[in-house]
């Protein structure tokens, strides 16, 4: 085939072949009017051919399908794993809100009060199971001093359905109890955040199994405080281990328990609470009257078998001058044991704390401050003033 060179450009030459085609070819120093035989023709501009267009269609279609799949599974994933489905409000004193996904895994932790924020500082609970997160948070609370012996943990569960609330409640209670078993005794309360009711079907008051029921020994121990409509279930009721010394010291001294039998009405709790504590009547510290009354108890191994209730004048009870005379003449008129006539005399209208009662001073004077079982670790600085 012969080609006629029609036009020359630096990059190419335009050739006319014998069939009437005009073609571009490499310009091997051609001149216009020259006839050439074996030119290197330029390839046709690569426009999207039919096949390629089909390929593009197919690939875009596949991309669309893939996008749909991704969207579908992404949504499923989001709903299952990312979106908060239920919440647990953990409150010790620090209050923490745990948002959980459908799997029960923590997706978000928020401190709902100042201590809660402090508790969460430097803690990453995301992706952990709710129980793990709760355990770790409780551990942190213990470490940071928010939770101590006898404290209370409240789980308020906000879940869309009742079954889930039950499931979470039981799980949290058992697992956390297991976790804390043998280390610390606390009250665990599970409440439905929506209805405000406690966990149904299990221990209405929400105390842990390991905490012995508060109604056992105290019944005979502190009759005054254990009268009808006594402590609220969440309040720390005195337990047998409730001594003021040794490892079981809960930081609250219960002076009224053993020491003041003659003044049963003079308790600081329950209906007998007269609002005045008698902390100064202790056997320790500056208020020590020099007489320890340990042996003179009516309970435990030191029980001498003689209740002193009938004694007309109990020396360590100087603060009952007015009420005492009423009792001694009627030794049988005790409220306990055989002498109990079923009538408590608490209501005799005579209190020990009328203005004239000089010795029955309140226990809250500043000089008594050191006697409050100063081991709660928190109020030390104030006490030392």
């Amino acid at each position, binding site marked *: 085939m*012969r080609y*006629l060179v*029609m*036009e020359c*450009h*630096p*990059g*190419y030459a*335009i050739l*006319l072949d*014998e*069939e*009437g*085609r*005009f*073609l*571009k*070819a*490499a*310009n*091997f*120093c051609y*001149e*216009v*009017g*020259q*006839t050439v035989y074996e030119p*290197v023709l*330029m*390839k*046709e*501009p*690569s426009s999207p051919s039919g096949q390629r267009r089909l390929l593009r269609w197919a690939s875009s279609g596949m991309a669309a399908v893939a996008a749909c799949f991704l969207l579908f599974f992404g949504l499923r994933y989001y709903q299952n794993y990312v979106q908060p489905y239920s919440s647990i409000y953990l409150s010790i004193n620090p209050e923490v809100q745990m948002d959980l996904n459908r799997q029960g895994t923590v997706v978000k932790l928020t401190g709902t009060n100042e201590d809660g924020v402090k508790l969460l500082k430097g803690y990453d609970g995301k992706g952990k199971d709710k129980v793990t997160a709760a355990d770790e948070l409780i551990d942190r609370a213990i470490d940071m001093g928010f939770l101590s012996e006898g404290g209370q943990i409240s789980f308020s569960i906000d879940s869309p359905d009742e079954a889930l609330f039950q499931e979470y409640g039981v799980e949290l209670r058992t697992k956390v109890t297991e976790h804390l078993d043998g280390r610390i005794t606390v009250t665990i309360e599970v409440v439905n955040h929506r209805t405000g009711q406690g966990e149904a079907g299990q221990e209405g008051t929400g105390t842990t199994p390991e905490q012995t029921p508060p109604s056992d020994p105290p019944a005979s121990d502190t009759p005054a405080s254990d009268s009808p409509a006594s402590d609220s279930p969440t309040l720390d009721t005195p337990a047998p281990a409730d001594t003021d010394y040794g490892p079981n010291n809960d930081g609250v001294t219960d002076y009224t328990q053993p020491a003041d039998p003659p003044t049963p009405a003079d308790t600081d709790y329950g209906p007998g609470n007269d609002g005045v504590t008698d902390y100064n009547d202790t056997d320790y510290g500056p208020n020590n009257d020099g007489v320890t009354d340990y042996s003179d108890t009516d309970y435990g191994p030191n029980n001498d078998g003689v209740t002193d209730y009938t004694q007309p004048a109990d020396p360590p009870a100087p603060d009952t001058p007015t009420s005492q005379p009423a009792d001694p003449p009627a030794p049988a008129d005790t409220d306990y044991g055989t002498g109990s006539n079923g009538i408590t005399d608490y209501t005799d209208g005579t209190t020990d704390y009328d203005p004239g009662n000089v010795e029955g001073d309140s226990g809250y004077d500043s000089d008594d401050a050191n006697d409050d079982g100063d081991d709660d670790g928190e109020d030390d600085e104030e006490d030392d003033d």
Partner: protein
Amino acid sequence: MNDEHKIIQQVYAAKEDVQAADALIRAYLPFIKAETAKFLKRPPVEGHDDELSIAMMAFHEAIGGYSRARGAFLKYAALLIKSRLIDYNRRERRHSHVVSLDTPAGETDTTLGETLADEKNHQEETAERDATRREILELTRQMEEFGVSLSDVADNCPRQQRTLNACRRVLRYAQETPQLLEELLQTKRLPMAQLTAGSGVERKTLERHRKYLVALLLIYTNGYEIIRGHLKQVMKNLSADTPGYQNQGKEW
């Protein structure tokens, strides 16, 4: 980044304008040479190395084929240059057993080409070439009046044999009715309606290859004997009838 932007604008301008394309190729000749040198492992010599011509053509092809979706222009051009050089190299390897005319002949300084007996009449050839050039220049000038350049025609040329044959049918019809060619020269417009009606070719096809048809019809108006002589095959096909086209198509 800005520099890249500038070259992209230049490339897009060069797609539209032949002059701009030539200017761009000239401006980037060092780049083209560098790319060729990478392939040849030596700097190419202008006017001597065919590879450089191939590279320049590849650069021109890159201008035509470039779109922003293809990324950076120079990278694309470099890739295309390399590919075309490889293609060319493969093609040339088939002739590797052929002895070059430039190889030294014997002990003398003369090359093999110079020892061959010169059978052609150089003077006659040069005169013929001059005549051809004059004709081509005249054709180019006339085409300009129609707003058509040879580059446009080359881009507009039918690529399928079937389309080419359709264009030939139009040409034959125009030849048979000389007043159409006169009308073309006077109005500087293709008498589309008549051509469509007379040749039986779809109007769409004609419109798509308008520039090519202008060139083809102009060649057959007057004067361009040498070009027409070159196109003898077109004549032959024109004299033959439609079945001949199909045979032609098979050959191709």
